[in-house]
């Protein structure tokens, strides 16, 4: 079973100069929401140089599609340039590379709705803000999204009441 190591994966992406936004459950946790998640969801910039850097990190992390692990299918540049979702397993755990999220929102669309955070060992990453995470989950409206919404909404309320990190 692969280990989980969010910080190592994020440090490698940061050090490689990959432009990306952390979204999903990990973004919610980094914003202070007491929820659990097992995967790292990112939305990368899909220009050619950035996809090349991202592919390099995925290669180093021995990433491949986790749907059919026995085939060890690896993403290529054309895959990661698409707006689709790429659910990978790596030596640092599950990594979901999302070309777009919500109603077709890509890296550039999300950028104004992010916060830069220091997440340990000097690693700084861009994280989707809580208000936008809530909006996206409301739009998706899936059972999993709706289940976590009360926690996200109350967290946002509490953050707005008292200044925290």
């Amino acid at each position: 079973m692969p280990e989980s190591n969010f910080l190592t994966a994020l440090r490698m992406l940061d050090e490689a100069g990959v432009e990306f936004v952390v979204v999903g459950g990990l973004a919610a946790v980094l914003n202070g929401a007491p929820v659990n998640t097992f995967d790292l969801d990112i939305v990368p910039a899909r220009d050619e140089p950035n996809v090349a850097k991202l592919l390099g990190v995925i290669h180093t992390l021995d990433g491949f599609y986790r749907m059919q692990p026995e085939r060890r299918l690896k993403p290529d540049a054309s895959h990661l340039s698409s707006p689709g979702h790429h659910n990978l397993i790596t030596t640092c755990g599950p990594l979901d590379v999302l070309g777009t999220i919500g109603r077709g929102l890509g890296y550039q669309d999300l950028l104004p709705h992010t916060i830069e955070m220091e997440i340990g060992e000097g690693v700084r990453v861009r994280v989707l803000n809580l208000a936008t995470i809530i909006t996206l989950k409301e739009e998706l409206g899936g059972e999993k999204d709706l289940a976590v919404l009360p926690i996200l909404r109350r967290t946002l309320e509490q953050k707005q009441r008292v200044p925290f990190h």
Partner: protein
Amino acid sequence: MTDPDPRPQSDYSEDGVDLTLIHWMLSLTPAERLQFLQGHVNGILAIQRLNAGE
């Protein structure tokens, strides 16, 4: 003038969310939140491994 009391008025919101847990999480830095999540995930994965043969 005193600072506003950061503690929630009630332990739970009307929709049943544990506000004390939210306040505790918000008291941490993002790096500390990541450390906590990582520890949580690693703990669950360790239990899964222990029970993988069952």
